[in-house]
């Protein structure tokens, strides 16, 4: 298989390593060192995509990150599909499989192009805002057609087989871009002993030096690049990152670098290698040496395959040994444009002409072209291209000195390639990411970085500095400045001598005039990927879209995956002209991360799947797993939800677990409850200020339940705190609220009451909490302790330090089930031991493990609330019927007191928590059901509350529920209705939420 456009020699490819790749189902050859784009061009493939609106055939335009057209689907298998890969940035590897993304039946013969041609005239910018409105009902149909036509590549449908890394990095100086400026800067800072990261998006360092034949110190520039790279590699504190795109520049010099570790090797990453790595870098100083992108000119049919930017033509010839055509016409406003003609000519192919918009261009490259006998047409421009799937010729005409109109007759030239140069646009994207507004510079005809608060330096092309000698010097100077800024002494660096090419002044011109007005001329593309034309921009301006942001948004200019790298400045220029303003008056748009797109996988790194969020387990977790527990996620904890036995459904398990507790003894792993150790002489005072109830008189050895409210008086957490010593308390919190409560305590202590001597520490993980509950719990405890645990010696709401199963334990006699209960707290590393001992001793009592769901039922039978389930941030203690837990006698106005006395909080008819008893005792109301007084009322039906907790109570033999009812505490015995989604209505009676043992006798035995 031949590569018709491949040169016999030259370039940085390795002809001894041929590679095979697939494009659109056919196999082709390329070489090691090719990009997919250079290989496609070498094989003489012209059409690589279809434009998204008009389905026009498109070819490769550029050679790097700015490429708008060559956006391909990659992937040899379903799971390894990657959409929208820019062929100019994808290194070729053996077996690479690629495909054009649009076009039916294929990209070469696309029937949509007929619609594009016929209907294109009806599709000016914003056409969709003006139509598809009638009839209203058809919009869904229109939309589905629009959606199918849009998009480019496709998502894989199988899970990614590869993994990704995130790495944190710190350095003195991060240098972005390893062209001449970046290398000179890197050499300077590295020699001076700084910690350096040098990142470049390409596979090898050198930047534009790799694309030219220019010399440094009389040697090929690559020799200097190699020497510098070698020296840099020798420093321990220098990290070199090729294939690494600095994709985002964030506040305070935080920078992200997307490194493609294996994308150049194979379809799927080699075993145990991350496919990509995202470096999260905090740099003391950043040097942006990002270079510049060449701007194409805007002329009619400038999107026909074969139209390329001039520098890209040189790159393909010099770097890849590929001449992407046979007969070249150059159309340029400046001297650089001539370079592609020189390179083309030297590669042995025909240069038809260089067409220069300047009347009297003078410069060394022009002279070099003349010496080669290349025809130069001055004061003229290519105003139109002929051809559809490949350039077949061009129309050249003389234009006025201001570049605004065609002044002479049209000459047609035969050609298959048009190289265009309208000058260069500095790559200022990264400096814009941090909110810095770019500044227009008339001299270089481009935007340069504006003022910034970042510790940022710039060098080379980004400043509009393009001569290699000057670029190197800027790099050196930026390096020296960075060295000084990080407080090091600068080492000496001698720069190589660059060729001094004399250049003439460029002409400021973006949009080439046509014989016809822009609106009638053949399409002149500004943004290829989004099919935005000069006529479209003019129309947008005519329709009143005058801000450049409006122009962008109305036309979609710059919204492609290239973010308008080629087109934005041209678009601004066209808009400025249409609005009779200057480019800076028209304004620029702000670039956002990413510089070029990066995989979601790389951003997520390893933080998905099992590592998405840490899992927290209690010390007894493995026992629960072995026992076949079902688990519930509570915060990060995995809590046993219930423990099914063979043949049981969930309700049967719950019934069994509940009855075991009510009749004998059950055990709950309550280790997940938040535990905060509070010490200090003012600990008691502090508790009194933070809880709604009184703490002044709680004796050592006693426990008390407390409600915690916000300053608005709304309950946000609750729990039991124990007085361990006069100046020592242990607070428990809800499982999910532990961290928030600790921060809440610290907030008040540190900011409001620093004079209080009190200290907080989280001890949640230090303790295992084994709650045995039920009439036989004392007997069970007695089996494992010699301590006196009789009611006389160890009464309700006491705690004791005793030995349980040979282990020191804090045992709390509190109850969330209403039964006699002991909460045994032991050091977490003893948890499993004690748990197992309890089961050993508990067999005779049928000790039954129960989970959170049973715990919820048992507490609901007693009318105990669960903060977060029976509260929602909008209820205060009185709404909960828990006025008993509020002390207004305390001298200090505790947190929440003032809040719960605001006008709206003391009004009548607030929603209040009550018990709900269904008329049919077998019916369990679904939690979340809404209460109404009149189920026949029309929609919107007035609602008076909702059900927060609802269960089947096996012990009571009927359903129980708690919920809010407006004014519920005064409506005992009244009827409410719960209309459900299926049309049924549940009738229920408002009652006390305490369904079992209202006097609390069971827990007091």
């Amino acid at each position: 298989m031949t590569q018709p456009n491949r040169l016999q020699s030259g370039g940085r490819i390795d002809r001894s390593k041929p590679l095979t790749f697939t494009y659109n189902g056919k196999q082709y050859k390329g070489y090691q060192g090719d990009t997919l784009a250079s290989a496609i061009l070498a094989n003489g493939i012209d059409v690589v995509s279809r434009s998204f609106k008009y389905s026009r055939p498109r070819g490769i335009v550029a050679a790097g990150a700015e490429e708008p057209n060559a956006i391909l689907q990659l992937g040899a298998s379903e799971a390894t599909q990657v959409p929208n890969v820019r062929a100019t940035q994808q290194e070729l590897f053996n077996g690479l499989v690629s495909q054009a993304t649009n076009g039916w039946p294929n990209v070469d013969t696309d029937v949509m192009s007929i619609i594009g041609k016929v209907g294109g005239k009806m599709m000016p910018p914003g056409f969709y805002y003006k139509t598809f409105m009638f009839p209203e009902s058809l919009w869904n149909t229109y939309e589905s057609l629009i959606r199918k036509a849009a998009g480019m590549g496709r998502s894989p449908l199988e899970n990614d087989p590869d993994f990704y890394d995130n790495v944190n990095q710190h350095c003195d100086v991060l240098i972005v871009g390893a062209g001449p400026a970046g290398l000179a800067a890197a050499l300077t800072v590295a020699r001076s002993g700084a910690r350096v990261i040098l990142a470049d998006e390409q596979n090898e360092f050198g930047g534009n030096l790799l694309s030219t034949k220019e010399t440094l110190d009389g040697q090929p520039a690559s020799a200097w690049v190699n020497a510098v790279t070698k020296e840099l590699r020798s420093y321990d504190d220098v990290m070199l990152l090729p294939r690494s795109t600095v994709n985002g520049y964030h506040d305070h010099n935080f920078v992200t670098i997307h490194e493609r570790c294996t994308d150049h090797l194979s379809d799927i990453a080699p075993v145990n290698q991350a496919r990509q790595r995202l470096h999260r870098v905090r740099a003391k100083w950043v040097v942006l040496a990002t270079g510049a992108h060449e701007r194409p000119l805007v002329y009619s049919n400038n999107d026909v395959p074969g139209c390329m930017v001039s520098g890209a033509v040189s790159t393909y010839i010099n770097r890849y040994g590929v001449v992407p055509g046979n007969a070249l016409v150059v159309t340029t406003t400046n001297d650089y444009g001539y370079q592609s003609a020189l390179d083309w000519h030297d590669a042995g192919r025909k240069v038809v002409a260089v067409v220069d918009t300047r009347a009297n261009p003078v410069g060394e490259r022009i002279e070099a072209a003349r010496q080669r006998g290349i025809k130069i047409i001055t004061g003229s421009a290519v105003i139109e291209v002929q051809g559809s799937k490949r350039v077949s010729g061009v129309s050249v005409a003389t234009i006025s000195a201001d570049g605004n109109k065609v002044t002479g007759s049209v000459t047609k030239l035969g050609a298959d390639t048009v190289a265009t140069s309208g000058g260069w646009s500095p790559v200022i994207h990264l400096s814009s990411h941090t909110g810095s507004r770019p500044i227009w510079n008339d001299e270089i005809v481009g935007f340069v970085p504006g003022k910034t608060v970042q510790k940022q330096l710039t060098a080379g092309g980004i400043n509009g500095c393009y001569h290699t000698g000057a670029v190197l010097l800027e790099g050196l100077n930026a390096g020296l400045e960075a060295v000084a800024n990080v407080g090091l002494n600068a080492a000496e660096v001698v720069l190589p001598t660059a060729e001094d090419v004399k250049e003439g002044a460029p002409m400021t011109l973006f949009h080439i005039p046509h014989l016809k007005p822009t609106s009638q001329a053949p399409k002149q593309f500004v943004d290829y990927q989004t099919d935005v034309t000069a006529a479209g921009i003019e129309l947008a301006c005519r329709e009143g879209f005058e801000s450049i942001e409006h122009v962008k948004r109305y036309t979609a200019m710059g919204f492609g995956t290239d973010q308008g790298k080629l087109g934005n400045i041209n678009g601004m220029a066209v808009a400025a002209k249409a609005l009779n303003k200057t480019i800076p008056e028209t304004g620029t748009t702000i670039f956002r991360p990413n510089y070029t797109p990066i995989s979601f996988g790389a951003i997520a790194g390893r933080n998905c799947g099992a590592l998405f969020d840490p899992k927290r387990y209690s010390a007894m977790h493995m026992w629960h797993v072995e026992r076949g527990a079902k688990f519930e996620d509570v915060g990060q904890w995995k809590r046993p939800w219930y423990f099914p036995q063979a043949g049981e459904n969930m309700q049967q398990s719950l019934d069994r677990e509940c009855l075991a507790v009510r009749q004998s003894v059950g055990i709950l792993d309550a280790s997940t409850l938040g535990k905060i150790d509070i010490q200090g002489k003012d600990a008691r005072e502090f508790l009194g200020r933070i809880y709604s109830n009184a703490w002044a008189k709680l004796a050592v050895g006693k426990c008390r339940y407390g409600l915690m409210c916000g300053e608005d008086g709304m309950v946000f957490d609750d729990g039991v705190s124990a007085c361990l010593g006069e100046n020592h308390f242990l607070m428990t919190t809800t499982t999910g609220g532990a961290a928030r409560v600790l921060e809440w305590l610290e907030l008040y202590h540190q900011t409001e009451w620093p004079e209080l001597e009190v200290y907080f520490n989280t001890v949640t993980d230090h303790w295992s909490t084994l709650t045995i509950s039920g009439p036989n719990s004392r007997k069970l405890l007695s089996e494992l302790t010699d301590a006196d645990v009789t009611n006389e010696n160890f009464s309700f709401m006491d705690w004791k330090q005793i030995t349980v199963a040979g282990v020191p334990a804090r045992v709390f006699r509190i109850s969330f089930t209403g039964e006699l209960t002991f909460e045994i707290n032991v050091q977490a590393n003893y948890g499993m031991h004690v748990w197992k001992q309890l089961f050993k001793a508990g067999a005779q009592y049928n000790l039954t493990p129960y989970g959170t769901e049973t715990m919820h039922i048992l507490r609901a039978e007693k009318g105990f609330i669960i903060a977060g389930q029976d509260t929602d941030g909008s209820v205060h203690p009185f709404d909960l019927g828990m006025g008993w837990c509020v002390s207004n006698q305390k001298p200090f106005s505790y947190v929440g007191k003032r809040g719960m006395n605001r006008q709206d909080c003391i009004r009548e008819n607030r929603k209040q928590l009550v018990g709900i008893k269904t008329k049919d005792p077998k019916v369990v109301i679904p939690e979340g059901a809404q209460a109404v007084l009149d189920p026949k009322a029309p929609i919107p039906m007035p609602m008076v509350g909702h059900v927060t907790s609802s269960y089947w109570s096996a012990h009571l033999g009927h359903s129980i529920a708690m919920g809010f009812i407006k004014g519920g505490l005064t409506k005992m015995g009244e009827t409410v209705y719960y209309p459900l989604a299926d049309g049924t209505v549940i009738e229920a009676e408002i009652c006390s939420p305490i369904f079992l043992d209202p006097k609390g006798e069971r827990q007091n035995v």
Partner: protein
Amino acid sequence: MFHIYCPHCAEYREEEEFHAVGQAHIARPADPDACSDKEWGEYMFFRKNPRGIHHELWVHAAGCRKFFNITRDTQNYDIKEVYKIGEKPSVVAE
């Protein structure tokens, strides 16, 4: 992502270790019960929320757990100074 100097740890740490709690220097009224609903509401909810120099309470949540204040420009996110609770800022809005 901010780079924040914790005045208690005396080190720069990543923003991920911290979070902002809101406007700094909002003292809890000495006698809440004497406050009108309006005064109490303003204490709880009403904020300066300035565009420009802002004094903001932060906590080194995944570090030393200490609260402290940051003076920061809310437009360009430049941190002007950090200072401990009880101290006064030296950079203030004009």
